[in-house]
């Protein structure tokens, strides 16, 4: 029975439970019940939080941070010169332009995935999709690496967007998705006609009824079930749940962020970070600008610029910017060539990502594109300077946050790693 990686009994149970559906032992809350991982690991990093601002649809580099003013591939937008050479966003980023010194712009993100769902998967996980394996997204990795399982709030909150499961890291690291940020969260309140007292009596009865079942069918499944309910009840009754809502946020702060769903989400993100949530993802959709790109991008930047800049200011003011990594990116860029409807197609060859906050070497630009933005020589070879692949970006995140990148995780019974082994760290990105 020599296997390249032998399974001990606990591993076997966990593997069989995930793949076969058996509740053989407590595979539910592997962290707190198996005990071994219940203490949060000490890391050699000052980053304790991550906010991902994910731009769904593929934001155009040419209408945002890599404009080509006056060129045939450019947009009819002016650009803003900043103190940072190369950091010249389009005119609609008037607030973010003032924060150039607090940001690091990567102009040379590059991949080969031009399909929305595949590219989103790649940018969210650092891996290309594999139908036989599900990789965790950035927020789930962070939740698993820094999160305290006994915390009142979920360790990964996603404001809008689809649930993206934590895959082999287990459901306890799934995102807690809020589909309408600021509005009443579904099922978080007691149902009509039920108050705390009535729920307590129901749950006490559940506990009583479980005793018999636990005796006959093993405590572990029941214990795990109980743990899940306790966590849910804790959240329902926690004073921290007000962090999901904006009611007690001062007007002047709300004014600073501006209005709109994205602005509200950014405030909620800050509130959650402040309360101790390790990972928050905020989604802004609508960037798939095949037509009418100039107007649509202008409009989207209108929703994005002020709240994003306010988020940076607010985090700085509260002393949280140094311990929070803020990432802005989408799944790919857009074709330099314009369509006759002022739109652009999908272009994974080069696109932008903007990083700021904890650990990032800010006030710099990484990568450079050529005059028109095609980045091809006469032999059709890429001339993109300092290309950064999504896997490289994740490797860099892992290095900055001191993730367990050499640890062999298990998916079914195959070994997997948080970050692609082949990827390279982008050294000049971090301090």
């Amino acid at each position, binding site marked *: *029975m020599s296997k390249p990686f032998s399974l001990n009994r606990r591993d076997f149970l966990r593997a069989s439970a995930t793949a076969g*559906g058996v509740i053989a032992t407590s595979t539910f*809350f592997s962290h707190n019940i198996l005990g071994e991982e219940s203490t949060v690991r000490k890391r050699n990093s000052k980053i304790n939080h991550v906010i991902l601002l994910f731009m769904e649809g593929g934001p155009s580099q040419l209408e945002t941070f890599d404009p080509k003013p006056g060129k045939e591939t450019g947009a009819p937008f002016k650009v803003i010169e900043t103190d940072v050479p190369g950091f010249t966003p389009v005119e609609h980023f008037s607030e973010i332009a003032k924060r150039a010194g607090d940001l690091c712009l990567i102009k040379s993100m590059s991949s080969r995935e031009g399909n929305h769902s595949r590219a989103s998967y790649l940018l969210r996980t650092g891996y290309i999709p*594999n*139908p036989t394996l599900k990789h965790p997204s950035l927020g789930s990795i962070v939740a698993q690496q820094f999160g305290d399982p006994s915390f009142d709030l979920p360790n990964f909150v996603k404001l809008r967007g689809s649930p993206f499961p934590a895959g082999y890291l287990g459901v306890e690291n799934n995102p807690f*998705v809020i589909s309408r940020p600021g509005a009443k969260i579904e099922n978080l309140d007691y149902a009509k006609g*039920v108050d705390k007292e009535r729920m307590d009596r129901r749950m006490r009865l559940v506990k009583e009824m479980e005793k018999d079942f636990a005796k006959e069918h093993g405590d572990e499944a029941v214990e795990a079930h109980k743990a*899940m309910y306790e966590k*849910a009840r804790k959240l329902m009754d926690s004073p921290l749940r007000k962090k999901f809502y904006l009611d007690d946020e001062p007007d002047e702060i709300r004014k600073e962020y501006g209005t709109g769903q994205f602005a509200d989400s950014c405030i909620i993100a800050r509130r959650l970070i402040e309360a101790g949530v390790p990972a928050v993802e905020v989604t802004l959709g609508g960037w798939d600008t095949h037509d009418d790109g100039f107007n649509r991008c202008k409009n989207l930047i209108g929703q994005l610029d002020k709240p994003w800049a306010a988020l940076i200011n607010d985090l700085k003011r509260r002393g949280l910017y140094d311990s929070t990594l803020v990432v802005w990116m989408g799944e790919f860029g857009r074709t330099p060539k314009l369509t006759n409807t002022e739109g652009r197609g999908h272009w994974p060859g080069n696109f932008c990502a903007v990083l700021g906050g904890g650990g990032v070497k800010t006030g710099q630009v990484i990568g450079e594109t050529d005059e028109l933005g095609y980045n091809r020589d006469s032999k059709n070879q890429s001339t993109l300077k300092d290309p950064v692949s999504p896997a490289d970006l994740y490797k860099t995140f892992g290095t900055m946050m001191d993730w367990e990148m050499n640890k062999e995780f298990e998916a079914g019974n195959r070994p997997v790693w948080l970050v692609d082994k082949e990827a390279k760290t982008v050294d000049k990105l971090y301090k």
Partner: protein
Amino acid sequence: MMKRSPILAILAVLALVCGILSQYTVEAQDHKKSDTEAAPPALGQDWGKMRDGLNDLFGQLHKDAGIKPSKICDDDTFLRRAYLDLVGRPPLPEEIEDFNPGKKDSQGNKGQAKREALIDTLLAKPDHAEHFADWWTVTMIGRDADGNSRKYLRQYLQGAFAENKPWSQMVYDLVAAEGRTPENPEVGYLMSFQNRKPDMAGITSKVFLGKQIQCAQCHDHPYEDVTTDDFEGMEAFFRMFNTGARGDGANRYWFTKDLPTHNKHEVSNRIRMQGKYMFPTYLGRETWEFEEGKNLRQSLATWMTSPDNAWFRNMTVNRYMAYFLGMGFVTPVDDFNAMNEPSFPVVLEMMGKDFAASGYDTNYLIRAICTSELYQREVDTNRTNRDDYKYYSRSYVKRLTPEQIQRSIMHVVGVQRLNEQTFIRDVPESKMTDDEKKAKKINDQVNGWKSHIAGSMRTAYGADPQFYEFGDFDGSIIQALMMMNADLMGPANLKNTVRDILERKKTSGDRIHEIFMTVLGRRPSKMDLAILTGTFAKWGGDDESAYTDLMVALMNTTEFITNH
């Protein structure tokens, strides 16, 4: 048993297995040789033989390993277990009465015969085909696949399971699907991949053959002899066709379209034109040969489902073992590789051959497994088998899938029953009879509830069927929040069910009995009754709110969301 040398134990087991099975095989072959018309059953003729084989074999293994197996479960347990596994929901109170736990059923059967009769009854129920179509749709293409693919695939599977189509025929239909929707709903499977050929090859190999070749897409398999060439060889079978869609709105339809295949040379050229140089090659290095009148996918489907393909039959047996018994011979269920040997390779091989000889009749397999002692064991363990995760000496608690939970909730709030009674002609509402109008109103409500449940479940579960094959009701807070607080669980929605029970049953004991039957599909134990007497006294009486709370409490137990 754990103290014995593992190698000795394995040798002993293998010797035993080979002994018993060769006897079984020789016996079967001897019968084949005799030329008499009334030859006794050979392989594939009698599922009872497979069942007896499993019983005898594991009985011997338990003795040898010093294991005292758990007791055979009682009728109540068996009934709920079989209902959840075969029709995806607990039994209705009248179905419990019909089975009459502990006594003779309505046909006068008892004991083993009664349980066999129940399996037959369940296999014939329309909701069995529905439930299996749900299960297999999720297994094949997941909950994330686009709605139309899921709809058509599910429709095809439901029809196929309803007529008990041979599994080999079903898989052939899916892999070689031709034509268009809605006439050929089987195109739903390939449609779901949106022309991503690597995924078609990867999923088809994994789901139907148990061979995980997808990682060889980028690199040679780290611990098995699967290379990038193997992967591309399989992928090449899907390179001469595409799926597509035409039309808008209600007229939109999906189709498959193959390039004509006239000879080997043409295929080779076309694939080269696409920048892929790998020639279609069956996994295991047999190259494709041109067959008159067959396209590449038809050749692939023929090879996959051929009686010579041990992967195909063994994968199916393993999946059904894992589904019903909570654990297959190979774990993970669809990862057969040189480093992941089956726990009982000879038994698997034997069952695979028997299954193939039955004409790939999945009901044959189900009958053998579900009437065996392996399936009928209690979950309760003893000192000798507490740690048994190999010999099937006990049953395991299985999590319900989201689909099973959805059906169970619908069943509690009365949707299931309403749905079955409703028949409405396809005429404008003005021309309907009063009964039909009433039924339509109920039906609309049912559909509303159904989509509400499906919607909550989707949020609650996210979607990750490809890996967590059996769903994962385990830890996402959102799921607990839904089960406690969703409107559906509110007094307003349970009112009708509760009032109906209060009207029909007059004593406290009868009412509790009925609620247990409705929610958990079993009678309350003495202990349950004692607890409830105390609880109701504490609550100050057993009014409508007390019964509502009892109902909600039961729906929030571990028991409700597991099969045991």
